[in-house]
């Protein structure tokens, strides 16, 4: 009877006009190859994110979708989306 634990990226999606990439990582617990449980951890890669530590599959999607034009548009979108900020604290 062998209990094993492994992780896999079981869902990689590209979402919306800013081509945000969503990655779901599943942690799978198995007993003799039969799945006992599966839990999820998610992270997202926006066009301005550092993708150097991502998997090869994710890097491929970043290379395909996060073009310079998309990065520039996303940067402008973030600037335009900032709330009016008071510079003081509390």
């Amino acid at each position, binding site marked *: 009877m062998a209990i094993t634990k492994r992780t896999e990226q079981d869902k990689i999606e590209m*979402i*919306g*006009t*800013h081509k*945000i990439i*969503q990655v*779901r990582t599943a942690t799978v617990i198995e007993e003799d190859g039969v799945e006992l449980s599966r*839990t*999820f*951890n*998610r*992270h*997202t890669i*926006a066009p301005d994110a550092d993708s150097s530590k991502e998997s090869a599959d994710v890097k491929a999607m970043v290379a395909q979708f996060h073009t310079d034009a998309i990065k520039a548009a*996303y940067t402008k*979108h*973030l600037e*335009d*989306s*900032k*709330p*009016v*900020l*008071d*510079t*003081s*604290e*509390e």
Partner: protein
Amino acid sequence: MSEIKVDALSTVSGSGSITVSNNLTASGIVGVNGGTGGQVATNFSSASAMGMKINDTNSGNLGGMLGFYSGSGAGTLRANIQNANNAGVHFSVGTGGSIVFTQNGYTAANALDDYEEGDFTPTLTPGGGSYNGLTLVGKYTKIGRLVSVQMRLKIDASGNASGSATVGGLPFASVGSWNRMPNKWRENTATGACGQFVVNQGSTGGFLQNDDGSNIAHTTGREYLINAVYYST
């Protein structure tokens, strides 16, 4: 009416119909193939009877109780109903399926097509300087297009952080209609103060502010608990 009783039957082929007034029992597989419209119809009138009974006599957890296939030949499994360790059933509608709350069939606005729960690691970035230590934890539940997140952002060492506070790393991209959709945070260790966490559409984060729009305090030991909902796909 004449009656025929036999001890054994060989394979019988024919093009007629079989009508049985009482019970029809088969120890093997009953196959239905061909015909038009509904191929298996069950009619019953008693409130105490079931139209169809499926009994997993082997009591197997995750045993297949009902499978839904499509495609030529044996078909491909698209969805199923499994035994939930004899405590219920798991109804798996498939990655492209949904539960539709209409009488006549699928309409997108009435289809519950996604449910998921899990963890994520948010980010907290100051407008100026940097933190020397943070504890960042997040949990999410997604129901249809609605994403609910709970986050714990603790400043273990404030460093020289200053200015605004940007939260990133949300588990799903926000695709709502407007920027700056408000949610709430509570500082949970020193002040008990509450403020706003605004989520922007088309992004994976937002901003922490005090309710009056001023910047939050970047103080060592402050712990910001955030409860937020937003739309995704």
